[in-house]
């Protein structure tokens, strides 16, 4: 198969999806759709984060105390809830994550 054909096909499909609604600047969503859109960030991002914490390898459950993704994720949620500050959440979350990975001997040092 011609790989370039594949690449151009993937370009066409991916771009069409991403451009789908940007293509219609005059379109105004009906109230129900607008209401639904309010939940897009919450629903999509949570659907990425939760499996990222509980199944860090994408396959196996890691409901364990040596799972830094889970513990640091919970810490980040706590920081975000208390501070409502994005940078504090990222910084604090990463700090807890790498400290845990280091303490658990999970870093390739």
């Amino acid at each position, binding site marked *: 198969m011609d790989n370039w054909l594949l690449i151009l096909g993937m370009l066409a499909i991916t771009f069409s999806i*991403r451009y789908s609604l940007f293509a219609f600047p005059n379109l105004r969503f009906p109230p129900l759709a607008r209401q639904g859109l309010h939940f897009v960030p919450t*629903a999509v991002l*949570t659907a990425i984060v939760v499996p990222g914490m509980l199944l860090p390898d994408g396959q196996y459950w890691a409901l364990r105390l040596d799972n830094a993704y889970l513990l640091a994720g919970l810490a980040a949620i706590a920081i975000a809830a208390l501070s409502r500050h994005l940078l504090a959440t*990222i910084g604090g979350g990463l700090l807890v994550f790498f400290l845990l990975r280091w303490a658990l001997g999970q870093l390739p040092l």
Partner: protein
Amino acid sequence: MTRSHEFTQGARDMLPMLLGAMPFGIIFGSLAGAAGLSPWQTIGMSLLVFAGSAQFIAISLLGAGTGLAVLLLTTLVVNLRHALYSASLQPFVRHLPKRWRVPLAFWLTDEAYAVVLHRYTDADAAPHKHWYFLGAALAMYLNWQLCTLVGVLFGQSVPNLAAWGLDFAMLATFIGIVVPMLRNCPQVAAALVAGAVALACHALPYKLGLLAAAFSGIVVGVLLERRSAEVVVEELA
């Protein structure tokens, strides 16, 4: 904020995302050859398609000898979630001319969506937020190209980046964006349902679990919001 200020701020706010995507770009660049892509095709795919998950799934299917039609159909399914991002951001970019909307759509990734939406929902009425979008999108794009190139050129000799767990930076950013949004019962319910469905459906291929989770969360959120609106109307009556 001025245009250039928005632009650099957008690029800067993407830093954790760049860190998180870095190992994946390098791994993609180093694995694509084994699936049958030439170095130019590998770089071409990152330049033209610019969709991490779809690129990874494409090379794994390609390596297994999958045909073109199935590969393209898979790309469609894997990237379907971007239609939600397109719809979600449309009200913020609709005033822009086509020469802005086309490139911004091309550069719309999960990471850029999260960070850019966060900026658009800031209460200020800054007129140049699309420059923030551009800065964030370009940072992600350049990072992806550089990492692909590093993977192609140095391949296996790059130390084991995946073992560092840099992808946690993306999770921490998403958490920092979502948690403050959970201000009322429908939003909390949408998050709980989306998380639960994502876990229940994690074994589905091609990000179908993510799609099912997103739709479940949205539907539950809307239903609860409608119900609480009805309760308010009844109390007033």
